[in-house]
């Protein structure tokens, strides 16, 4: 194996020089051909174009073309107040909208110096973790569908429906919530919501073993995912992977634990860690993250302060951001690390620039490296295990 070159060097030459992972003895030489996994495709989780260079069945290069879902959210946000910004952050990652809301609200609060009461913080963490469960359920269903298993999708969505119902009772919408606001949350929890949430958690924990029986323990699934798409520790760090994709390779880093925000410092939870860095380890990390999220929510529901603290600090519609400030806030979204950079120019109600660093964008960049040398059918398994959603890439 040659020494790893910098990305710039690799981009300078347009030739594939790295040895493929599986040595193929060539008696018959056939030309490489390019296959277009077009923007409309049942497996790309959205509109993404992949141009795959194949040598027979073996993948030699994957070139993603993104931008089909670009909605200029960041540019639009330059002309919106802090309160209005949150609606657009919903659309940055509509699968896990609470986490995106939370990231941008943390940035807004940090830049404008707004404090959040404790009850508000606990409610935000509960919502973020519930959304993590919902997002991982959607990923789980999609992953099964990519590999050909039709039924886990429906079971996952049955559970996800319960989470979405809980969200609908709290804020009114099922996908784009606009619930977590600068200063706290928009409304307090309705009556008996805590009981319903707890009964959902009890119900959900009885369903997780069934997912393991149906998918994880399945020999066909294991043969499809073990040893596929291996990322070593160094490669994972170099490529900027984050979240379960990073932890599957053995790098023990979780923003919630190592750089805590909100009330995560008061909570005890387990962060699942993989060792081999293959698709199966990433899959298992996400499944166990669901369990650990249930743990977190239970702790928060116990520790939830009473209503006297208030669920939000009232922030006016035209709250001013002081001049010449910039902040970078990191959170752990279900896909990985989501950071929001916000800076204010001369001050005023609207920020000068809002930048979302989304995990899917970085994880997608690693797809090329991860799938070289594997077969075309493995490409779908690897792509599914990276948990890439297109709105996060294109914003």
């Amino acid at each position, binding site marked *: 194996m040659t020494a790893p070159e910098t990305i710039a060097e690799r981009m300078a030459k347009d030739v594939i020089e790295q040895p493929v992972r599986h040595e193929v003895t060539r008696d018959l030489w056939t030309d490489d051909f390019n296959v277009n996994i077009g923007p409309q495709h049942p497996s790309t989780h959205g509109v993404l174009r992949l141009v795959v260079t194949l040598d027979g069945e073996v993948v030699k290069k994957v070139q993603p073309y993104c931008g089909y879902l670009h909605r200029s959210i960041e540019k639009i946000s330059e002309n919106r107040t802090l309160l209005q910004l949150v609606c657009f952050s919903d659309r940055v990652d509509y699968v896990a909208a609470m986490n995106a809301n939370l990231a941008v609200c943390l940035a807004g609060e940090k830049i404008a110096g707004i404090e959040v009461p404790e009850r508000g913080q606990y409610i935000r963490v509960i919502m973020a973790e519930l959304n993590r469960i919902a997002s991982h359920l959607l990923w789980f269903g999609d992953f099964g569908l990519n590999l050909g298993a039709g039924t886990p999708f429906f079971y996952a969505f049955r559970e996800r*429906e319960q989470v979405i119902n809980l969200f609908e009772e709290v804020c009114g919408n099922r996908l784009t919530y606009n619930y977590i606001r600068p200063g706290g949350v928009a409304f307090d929890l309705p009556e008996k919501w805590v009981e319903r949430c707890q009964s959902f958690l009890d*119900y959900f924990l009885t369903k997780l073993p069934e997912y393991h029986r149906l998918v994880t323990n399945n*020999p066909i699934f294991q043969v499809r995912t073990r040893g596929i798409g291996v990322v070593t520790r160094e490669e994972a760090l170099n490529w900027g992977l984050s979240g379960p994709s990073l932890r599957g390779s053995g790098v023990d880093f979780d923003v919630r634990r190592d750089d805590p925000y909100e009330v995560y410092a008061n909570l005890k939870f387990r962060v699942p860690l993989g060792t081999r860095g293959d698709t199966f380890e990433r899959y298992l990390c996400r499944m166990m993250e669901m369990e650990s999220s249930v743990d977190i929510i239970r702790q928060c529901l116990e520790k939830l302060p009473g209503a006297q603290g208030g669920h939000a600090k009232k922030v006016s519609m035209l709250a001013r951001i002081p001049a010449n400030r910039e902040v970078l806030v990191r959170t752990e979204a279900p896909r990985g690390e989501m950071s929001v950079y916000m800076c204010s120019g001369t001050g005023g109600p609207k920020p000068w620039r809002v930048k979302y660093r989304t995990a899917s964008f970085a994880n997608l960049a690693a797809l090329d490296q991860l799938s070289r040398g594997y077969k075309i059918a493995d490409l779908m398994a690897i792509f599914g295990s990276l948990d890439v959603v297109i709105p996060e890439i294109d914003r």
Partner: protein
Amino acid sequence: MLLLRIRSLALSAYLLGDGMAVTLRYMFTKPVTLQYPHEMKKLPERTRGTLILYADIERMKCKCTVCMVCEVVCPNNSIHIDFERDTVNKKKVLTKYYWDADKCIYCGLCVEGCGFDALGWVPEFEISTTDRRKLVWDEKDMMQAWLTSIGRKDIDAKRVDNKWY
């Protein structure tokens, strides 16, 4: 070596059978889907279905005082208000309240921002039409939507509770 292969084969067969048992068990449970449009889900009261203006039924007037907060706070410019000044006491009088139902992102900032309880949500989501121009509602449409929703007792009877555990 052979023994290992046989053991792994037997284990695989058992695990495959276990997975099949899960699917078979669900075949005999009640389905979790509702047969829309014959059955509909009971929606929670905070559901952001359709934006409405609360109406004073006798005089068919709404409570809007044309403070323009909703138009300003809307992130999408989905609300447009036309008003004129009353010549006597110089107060603003509403002439037309336009709400763009297809542009709106249903974020709820207008309802929260309204200080006079003029705006609200009803859990009515079947407002689609075949003509796009009909999706721009004026204040009469919005008041009518509210009046229709409070009178729809029969629809509420068909809404079922969607809890299966």
